[in-house]
């Protein structure tokens, strides 16, 4: 990176650069203690297995082999992949449209609208899930009430067909505004000369949005996408809370994270839980990295 200072004298700069260690040390110490160490420990645990007789023994990659053919885990991974492929594009396209609408300057009340769409982000995920579970609920949920008032059959939003969509709706509600703000902030940082140049070339508002604004948003979109990968594959709060209302639809392996939770704290199988969470982390890193590469390649 090009920001390093040109050193006045070599010895002074060497002494000063040692001071750099002191600045980064507190973060790095905590980083090792809270991130590297638990990961290493999980890796270590995942190589062992507890047996009814004989206690804990070294098992090599047995836990991983078991996990790779564990249908409950694979179902969960497929489910969150499907979720990711449907929910994330919808959310990001909505966020992009809203950001462009705000940035167009052609809207009244834009400040109110921007804040209103963003406000759900300030609501904790658990509380959002609680609230929506009541809204979905057949007992006093307004969605059911509205359908009944109109004489329509009430959709069972907690049935196995609609559940994933119901979860997707909660996540979309929570995070569209957040992504919108990321994109909107990036739009505001585009130098105005670019618009002027495009306008001189005869580009209209739509053309400018498509050919100038959206390409300039690529880094911001990439960041939003990476965070969405991480979020989707980590789904826990929303299904965990909806589980109480529909235990037959959401089983203990509905998402990989629910599965690791129940492995560790219900079945008390720490070693296998460690292997599963390690694999899940690997999946997330691989998917994020693939996404990044795909975006980087398009850029050329």
């Amino acid at each position: 990176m090009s920001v390093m200072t040109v050193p006045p004298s070599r010895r002074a700069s060497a002494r000063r650069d040692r001071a750099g260690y002191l600045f980064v040390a507190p973060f790095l110490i905590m980083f090792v203690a809270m991130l590297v160490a638990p990961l290493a420990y999980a890796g270590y645990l995942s190589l062992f297995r507890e047996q009814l007789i004989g206690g804990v023994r070294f098992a090599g990659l047995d836990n991983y082999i078991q996990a790779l053919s564990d249908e409950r885990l694979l179902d969960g991974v497929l489910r969150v992949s499907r979720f990711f492929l449907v929910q994330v594009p919808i959310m990001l396209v909505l966020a992009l449209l809203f950001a462009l609408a705000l940035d167009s300057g052609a809207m009244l009340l834009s400040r109110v609208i921007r804040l209103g769409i963003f406000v759900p982000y300030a609501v904790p995920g658990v509380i959002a899930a609680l609230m929506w579970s009541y809204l979905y609920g057949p007992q006093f949920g307004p969605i059911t009430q509205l359908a009944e008032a109109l004489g329509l059959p009430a959709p069972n939003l907690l049935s196995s067909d609609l559940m994933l969509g119901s979860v997707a709706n909660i996540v979309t509600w929570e995070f569209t505004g957040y992504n919108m703000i990321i994109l909107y902030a990036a739009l505001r940082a585009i130098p105005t000369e670019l618009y002027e140049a495009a306008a001189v070339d005869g580009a209209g508002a739509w053309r400018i949005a498509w050919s100038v604004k959206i390409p300039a948003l690529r880094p911001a979109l990439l960041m939003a996408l990476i965070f969405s990968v991480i979020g989707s594959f980590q789904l826990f709060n929303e299904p965990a809370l909806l589980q109480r209302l529909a235990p037959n639809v959401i089983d203990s392996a509905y998402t990989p994270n629910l599965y690791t939770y129940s492995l560790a704290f219900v079945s008390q199988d720490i070693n296998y839980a460690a292997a599963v969470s390690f694999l899940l982390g690997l999946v997330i890193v691989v998917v994020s990295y693939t996404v990044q590469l795909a975006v980087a390649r398009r850029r050329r």
Partner: protein
Amino acid sequence: MTVTATAPPRATAGAAHSAAAGRRRSPVLTLGMLAVLVYFLLPLFWLVVAATKTTGALFSSFGLWFGGDFALAANVRNVFTADGGVYVHWLLNTAMYALVSAGGAALLAALGGYGFAKFAFRGNRLLFGAVLGAIMVPSTALVIPTYLIFSNVGLVNTPWAIILPSLVNPFGLYLMRVYVEEAVPDSLLEAARIDGAGEFRIFRQVVLRLLAPGFVTVLLFTLVATWNNYFLPLIMLNDPSLYPVTVGLANWAGRASVGGGGTGDVIPLVVTGSLLSIIPLVAAFLMLQRYWQNGLTAGGVKQ
């Protein structure tokens, strides 16, 4: 390194920008976006309405309008007195966990971001790369091994179990590094060095002041992350008086759904408790909006 926000984002965001975009207002666009707004605000409106109802009215009246007795005051009183007033503990715990974590995380990120941005020590790039890669590590994959480590050293079921893991925010460090590059000129540091100031003193008296907006941004994001956290405290804590609001309310909700809503009197507690708990956060967000917007620009525009 394509687009860099060299000018502070707020300066570009001014009148020049919207003038270039054209001043024509479109009522169709406004109406469309107001319809969108309804989707985002209706659940919150429902929450406000539901918090005014008794259990009976909750089941019998239309969900999106007031009905039955106006029971808001009674509901609030019940929230604060239920289970020996444990809800107050939850609120205080949440505030304490969030503030301590966010303050600590922002300080660590500021120190580290400055160190990585302005000092060419050996291993700088390698270490920073390692931290950057960790942004992708899913936090929930860490919770179970962290729990096991903490239970060995006796930290489980203490506030530290929530605070310590929240102090490390790799994304915060990244934001701070970007922010230092933009906001702290090398010449200023050189001048302070020539005046004979020590490195740490320069940080405290010069750098930290320039970093204030970035600092607040990281503070805010960690604050939200800790405030919203559910998985970590769910696993680390089993004493209800240590719970944050999220775990506490989810527990009440669990009690309400046992027996198919037969214990319906808990539902108003959950609804009203939810409403009360989000008011401070929503208020803080509306007041501090300038900061998160600037922070997001720093993170989202640079690559």
